[in-house]
Every structure is written in structure tokens, then in C-alpha cells.
């Protein structure tokens, strides 16, 4: 094992999550939704990996699979030296304290019948964090850390605003003192002004506790602000993965171009650029997808072999991988034909 590997906190290899659909009749072939199809990535300790993609690309399913909140069909996942896929029962329950999740919707992620203080205290009681007598103090400290007042512990979730609720969600996630925090679109449901507050809070907490984030988002601006490395997902597969700088300056995959082109801009020069890629149509159905590149149907450059062969994720240069037949080995992106 080489030295940099020791730095890897989360190692996911060939992860597949397929959902069986009910048969239409007893003779029909059972269909599967390929929500996540052969996804591999690593997150280094103390860094943030962003996963971006449009709705239905499998980002959230990937996050839930890592948290073992949805059944894993195939593949391996390691948190440090712990094999996450093999864990079951009590061992899995105990390991959950090392990884926590912040959910997208601050309204449905807090139990409406439990007071804020109890929500943050519950993980400590269940995971035996700290001495029982100290927990009250720990909860108060966490409230301060996430920017809430300790007196607010007695309130119920519906008495908080969306941003405050998300802060409670962050405090709950930190209560077990986790190594990995999965952020599943933590700011998508919030106002823009509040988004910035929560993102800054997440960044300062990362610096303070040395947290590792797996950050799911559909907002490239947010990802650019938060992440060290970024993986772009399309229909259950990673199509491009790179560090933040190269992804934003030299995107290789046509889908990444399209995503970057879709970022709204007030600058007419950017807005009316000739090489803007506009996507038409919808992504194909993830139910029993055909072979070939899944983006081929919407790709302006698609050729015959794109439909025939499934492109694999190739490393073009250090830290930059892409799954596209048309990207040359020295990293020249596909040209618009004629």
C-alpha cells in the first residue's frame, strides 16, 4: 500500500445500486432501475469531494448507499479500514457513529415531535458519546458551534426557520463526532443568503474538526466554493472526475460543458458565447439502460461507436478522468463536427 492511500478515508469501488421493479405480469421480465451503475471514487481525509449532476443522476442514491441507508447491489466501500458493505446488525450500527449525513430538506429531516436539544442529544445517548452527565454540556456547546443559542434547545423544530433547522441538522450530524459527513444537497432548500451562511459554517467546522465531506449538489457554484475534487454524474455513472481547478477551466466531457454552460450569467459575452452547449431533451430512462454511452442521445458530438460501446473512465492526466470516446488520450476535447 503506497503512502497516499493512507490518506484515503472513503474508498468506493464499482458501486452499484439497482432497484428491482415489480413485474408487470408473471411472465414479464423483471426490470431494474440502474440508479447507481459502477461508480468509483475516493475521498481523502480532510478534503471535500463534490458529486454534481441533474435530478435523477443517482447523486443522492450514492450518498444513501455510502451511509448504508439504501441496499447496495454490488461493489465495495471502505471507511478507513472498515468494510462498509460487509457490516451488518450491531457492528453496522456502531460504525454509523463514524459517518453522518446532513439532509436536503430541513423540514422533513427533523422529527416534528422532538425538541431541538433532544434531537442533538439523541445520537450521543445512542452511540455512548461522552459521559451521560457531560452530554447536556456537549449539546450546549454544539448549539453554539453551529450558531444557535443554547436556550433554543427547548424549542420544537417548527419554531425555527429553514436555516436554523439546517443548523440543528448539522449539530445532530456532528454529535457522534464523525470522521465523514455526507452532505446531501444541504443548501438546495434554502434562500441564497442563508445558503452562504450554511456553507461558511460547514467550511469552518471542517477546518475546526478536520472533517471529510462527501458533498452532493446540483449547483456548480456551490460545488466550486466547497469542493477540492468534483465528480460529475450522469444517469448513474461518473462521466468526469477532476480537481476543482481543472474541472472548471478545462472540462473535457460534453456533459460537463453543458452543465457549465447552464450556469446563469449576467455577462453577455459569456451568455452569448458560440461554444455554449445547450442540452435538448431529457435524460433517458434509467430502467434497463441500453449499452453505449448514456449521454449519446443528447450529445452534440455523438458518433456510431458512442452508441455501440460503453466508454470507461480513463485518466487523461493526473487527477483528471473522463468517460468519453471522443476525448483524445492527450486531453483534447471533442470538436464540433463541421
Amino acid at each position, binding site marked *: 500500500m503506497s503512502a497516499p492511500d493512507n490518506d484515503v478515508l472513503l474508498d468506493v469501488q464499482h458501486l452499484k445500486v439497482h432497484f428491482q421493479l415489480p413485474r408487470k405480469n408473471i411472465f414479464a421480465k423483471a426490470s431494474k432501475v440502474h440508479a447507481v451503475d459502477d461508480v468509483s471514487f475516493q475521498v481523502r481525509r480532510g478534503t471535500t469531494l463534490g458529486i454534481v449532476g441533474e435530478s435523477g443522476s443517482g447523486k443522492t442514491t450514492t450518498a*444513501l448507499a455510502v*451511509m448504508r*441507508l439504501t441496499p447496495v447491489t454490488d461493489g465495495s466501500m471502505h471507511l478507513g479500514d472498515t468494510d462498509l458493505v460487509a457490516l451488518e446488525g450491531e457492528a453496522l*450500527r*456502531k460504525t*454509523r*457513529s463514524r*459517518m*453522518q*449525513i446532513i*439532509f*436536503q*430538506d430541513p423540514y*422533513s*429531516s*427533523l*422529527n*416534528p*415531535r422532538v425538541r431541538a436539544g433532544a434531537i442533538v442529544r*439523541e*445520537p450521543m445517548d*445512542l*452511540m455512548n458519546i461522552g459521559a451521560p452527565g457531560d452530554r447536556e454540556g456537549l449539546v450546549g456547546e454544539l448549539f453554539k458551534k453551529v450558531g444557535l*443559542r443554547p*436556550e*433554543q434547545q*427547548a*424549542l*420544537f423544530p417548527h*419554531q*425555527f*426557520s429553514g436555516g*436554523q433547522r439546517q443548523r440543528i*441538522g448539522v449539530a*445532530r450530524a456532528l*454529535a*457522534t463526532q464523525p470522521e465523514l459527513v455526507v452532505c446531501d444537497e444541504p443548501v438546495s432548500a434554502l434562500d441564497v443568503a442563508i445558503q452562504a451562511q450554511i456553507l461558511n459554517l460547514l467550511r469552518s467546522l471542517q477546518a475546526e474538526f478536520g472533517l471529510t465531506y462527501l458533498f452532493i449538489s446540483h449547483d456548480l457554484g456551490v460545488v466550486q466554493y466547497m469542493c477540492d475534487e468534483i465528480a460529475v454524474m450522469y444517469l448513474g455513472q461518473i462521466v468526469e472526475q477532476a480537481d476543482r481547478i481543472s474541472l472548471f477551466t478545462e472540462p473535457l466531457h460534453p456533459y460537463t460543458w453543458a452543465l457549465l454552460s447552464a450556469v446563469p450569467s449576467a455577462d453577455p459575452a459569456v451568455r452569448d458565447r458560440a461554444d455554449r452547449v445547450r442540452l435538448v431533451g431529457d435524460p433517458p430512462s434509467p430502467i434497463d439502460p441500453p449499452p453505449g454511452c448514456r449521454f449519446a442521445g443528447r450529445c452534440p458530438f455523438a458518433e456510431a461507436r458512442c452508441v455501440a460501446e460503453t466508454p470507461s473512465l480513463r485518466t487523461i492526466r493526473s487527477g483528471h478522468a473522463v468517460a468519453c470516446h471522443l476525448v483524445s488520450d492527450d486531453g483534447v476535447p471533442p470538436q464540433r463536427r463541421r
Partner: protein
Amino acid sequence: MSDAKNTTPSNGSPGDVDEIFVEHPFRQFVVMYMRNYAAVAGLFVFVLIVGAALFAPLILDLDPFEMVDAPLLRPGEGGHLLGTDNLGRDLFVAIIYGARVTMAVGGAAAGITLVIGLTIGAMAGYYRGWVDEVLMRITEFFQVLPPLLLAMVLVALFSPTLETVAIAIGVVSWTGVARLARAEFLRLREQEFVKAARSIGARDRRIIWLVIMPNALPPLIVNAALTVGIAILFEAALSFLGLSDPNVMSWGKLIGDNRDYLLDAPWTITFPGVAIFLTVLSMSLIGDGLTDAFNPKLRER
């Protein structure tokens, strides 16, 4: 009612410590309930009947089976408020004593209904898969059996005591609660706070009973109120058919005993009938009020 005026939410910031008490969900719940006058009336009638059932026999110390006067006296005749029945028993006393049985059997049957229905519905909705399939097929099996017939068979098979009657009613009427509980569990188990509970290390049992159940209860409590009403009707039907403890006075039994005199002495059947009607109506109104009180959309901001 004045209570409702004093507890309108103050408009301080959410951090106001005072507001914790004002905005406490239970308090809000009471305020909402009190706004529904029909529900308050229902509660009043219900409390009156329960109070009569509990305390009147202690104060009066009478025997409802005692033949006190000539049979079939009109209401008021011979000092009997509601008259007498076919055996010369005081109808008023019989109704007061009958309330005890009706309430006890109705309540116990509703309790059994809830326990069976909640457990089966919770398991089916939470575990899904084959557990759900098996439990729902069992539920459907009970649903297709005619409930009154099944209850009659159960009471006839075992001894016609109050316990048997309550259990029989519970056994034939839990299916609705089970389906409702299953639906609520199916809905709630996908909520993010349930996933959160799992990821902070809560075990299945905790998630079912302490995380999902409290959130699933509101529609089930409403249903429970209605179930009490249905169980009371059921008990009356069974007693009317003579399938209840013959040594215990109940409203259904009064109607059953006097049905031959329907045309000559209609009051002997009307008064127990009115008692059943009022009780079931009060449960219905209470159920309505609970629906409103649990519905956050009706609460003013």
C-alpha cells in the same frame, strides 16, 4: 372558551422563552379543539355519560334488574322518570347501569382493535416485503368475513361474558386500523428524519415505536374515537341478539328484551336507542374535533 383567547400566540422571535409554553403543541391542540363547538358539545355529552356510568350507581345503589312497579308504565308514571320495561324494571336505572357495560365493552373493544391493528399495520408498513404480503393477506382474510357473523360465532363458541364480547368485537374490527397504520408507516418511513434516526444508531424497535409511531398517531387517534362508537353499536347489536352476558344490563339487551312491545310501549326501545345514538354521535363529534385539532393546516399562524 376564555382559555382560547388567552393563548393566542405572542409575536416575539422564535427564541423567546415565554413562547415555548404558548406554542407547545398540546396547548395549540387544545385551543384548536375548543374552536370546534360541535366537538366540545360531543365531549360534554361523552363526559356526562361516562360520569353517569361511573358515579350514578355508586350514589343510587339500586339493582337494575329489580322489578319495582307494574310493567310498561309510561315515562313519569309512578315516579319513574323514563317509565318501566316489560318486566316492570325502572328504565332510567337500567339505562344508567347499562351505560357502564356499554362504555366498558366499547372502550375495551376499541383498545383491542387498536393494539392488534397498530401492531400489524406498523410491522407491515415498516418491514414491507414478505412481512407486508403475509400480514396484508391475513388482514384481507378478516376483511372479507362478515364482521357481525364472525363476532356471533366467536361469542357463541366461547361463553357469552363481557370479556368474550369485547374480544370478539376487537377481533372483527381491527382491519381498518391496520390498513391505516400501514399507510402511515409507508409514508413516514421514507421521511428524512427516519433515515436520520437510523444513521444516528437507532434500532428498528426504537424507530417503529418512538420515531414513526408518534407521528403516525393523529389519524389513528381520530380513528380510535370512531372505533369506540362502532364498538358500542356492535355491543348493542350482540346484546340485542341475546349474545351477551344475560346477567348484565346493557342498552342493546334492553332493546332486545322489549322489542315485542315496540307498538304498545315505544318508549322502552326509544330511550335506550337514544342513549346509544347520543353516545355514538358524541364519539363521532369528538373524532371530528380531533381531526381538526391535529390538522396543522387549520392552525392560524
